């Protein structure tokens, strides 16, 4: 009661005062700072090399040239890199989710003995830096003839991503409603049927978040692809830009055009799935 009268006497200072505009201006300024590198990249991706060397990186383009973009696209055969990235990330996303689901089904619903330790092991596998696996994997891939193949990267990341997926899904499935499982059992459903007819449909939102995450994570991976994929025909989008930079052949406009083309797919993906992504980040955070 007292609080109410007080609130009437002392209205919120921020609601009308100039403070809120100051805060807004500050945040907009910070957001603009974050965008500056993108803006500079856009500005220079459409210039001709002569324009760049003559007028520097800050000037408005003389004319909007698509040459840099076209040159980069042709030089790295970008359509091939795009296809490689889609095949690798797509396969890893699907296979990783399936593998995580099978593991988590046994751990969360099946409650197999020693599950706490097994989940801990998967969590540990998620923490192990790739450097501590890469040389034996590199050696193994060479021995089995999988070196420099997309399959090698698909297998490795399916397992690495599913280590995280298992950890996440096992804790989700640990609290799966018993009533649903019991109902399925009474209806005579086998474990296999229960998994696909009852568990998967209920988990669909979580699974789709996981799918998108695995896709993006794998798309952005660099270290293991750098080691495993040496051939132009197998490399992914980030590798294409990096290996070209390694040659030191790229002029500034091609660098910017290449960076623009390389990050465009991820930005489009981000805009399409923004909601799912932020939901997923938070789901991961609170476990």
């Amino acid at each position: 009661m007292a609080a109410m009268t007080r609130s009437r006497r002392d209205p919120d200072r921020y609601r009308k005062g100039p403070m809120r505009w100051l805060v807004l201006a500050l945040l907009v300024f910070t957001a603009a700072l974050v965008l500056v590198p993108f803006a500079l990249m856009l500005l220079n991706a459409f210039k001709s090399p002569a324009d760049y060397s003559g007028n520097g990186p800050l000037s408005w383009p003389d004319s909007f040239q698509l040459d840099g973009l076209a040159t980069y696209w042709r030089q790295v055969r970008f359509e091939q890199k795009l296809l490689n990235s889609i095949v690798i990330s797509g396969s890893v996303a699907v296979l990783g989710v399936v593998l995580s689901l099978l593991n988590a089904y046994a751990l969360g619903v099946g409650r197999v003995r020693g599950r706490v330790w097994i989940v801990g092991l998967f969590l540990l596998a998620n923490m192990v830096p790739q450097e501590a696996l890469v040389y034996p994997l590199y050696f193994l891939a060479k021995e089995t003839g999988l070196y420099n193949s997309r399959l090698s990267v698909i297998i490795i990341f399916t397992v690495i991503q599913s280590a995280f997926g298992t950890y996440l899904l096992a804790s989700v499935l640990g609290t799966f409603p018993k009533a649903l499982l019991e109902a399925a059992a009474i209806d005579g459903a086998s474990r296999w049927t229960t998994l696909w007819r009852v568990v998967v449909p209920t988990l669909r939102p979580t699974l789709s978040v996981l799918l998108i995450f695995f896709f993006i994570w794998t798309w952005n991976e660099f270290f293991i692809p750098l080691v495993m994929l040496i051939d132009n025909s197998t490399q992914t989008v980030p590798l294409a830009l990096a290996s070209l930079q390694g040659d030191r052949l790229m002029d500034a406009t091609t660098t910017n055009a290449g960076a623009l083309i390389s990050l465009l797919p991820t930005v489009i993906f981000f805009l399409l799935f923004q909601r799912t992504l932020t939901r997923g980040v938070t789901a991961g955070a609170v476990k």
Partner: protein
Amino acid sequence: MSARQLGRSAAGFWWYLLPGAVAFIAIVAVPFGANIYLSLTKWSGVGSPRFIGADNYTRLLQDDVFWGSFRNSLAMVVAMVIVPTVIGLLLASTLFDVIGRRFGNKTASFLRATFYLPQVLPVVVAGILWGWLLRPDGAFNALLNAIGLGGLSHDWLGDPRTALPMVMLVMIWVQIGYPVVIFMAALQRVDPDLYEAAEIDGAGWFRRFQAITLPQIRPETFVVALTCTIAALKVFGPIWALTRGGPNNATTVPSYFAYNAFFNKLQVGYGAAVATALTLLIVIVSLAFLRIQSRTESAEER
């Protein structure tokens, strides 16, 4: 009856673990074990490894570059954990508290998406973009010239004194969106009545931030700190794209050090020792984090 049915069949669930177990053993457990073995050998990658015991480790302890790489890891922790978490907290709470409530959720989520944008890029692409910005003929120097500070222009990544701070700057730019997104979601979970009551009691913004925001989102702060610390210790792509550990090892980090030993210097055993040491560090740090977390949680319950 149905419970008994489920209980009886629990053994059958092992089958579901089989593909995962086989894959895990082949891709993680065996390679990890092999890496530990290799760390006890001298090997160039061809021929057979020669067992030398702990020699690689004693050599590591005397290697200035190795210690330097861990000092640089600390710098990465500052750039990827401490700075982004602090700035992220401020951004998220002002976005939520002031922007979201005074200017509407649309404005707040638009700003949040902007902060998050660098996070969706392949980090090596971000590294190459920044590598160009910081080049001697890049945009950073051009900006300095344009505002009359041309005297400061510099080969930012080529000078051992400025290379590391610049890599840190890039990592802050990359990382900032992650805590913002997590903290904003965390704040949605907090009961708005708490803020209202505090506001009515005349608590200013800072007081509310201190007394409500910080304690309420402690679990998320923990997760952000842990995941970012692990990421900071593992960082590779940006170093590769920006400096390749140079100039003169000024920006070498353990993962780049290991990569370099494996594939450029052909010192596989030595690289494996670095990778094993890094793994050990990550596991210790993670366990320490989890320990502190469970201790604060149980302290709160009491």
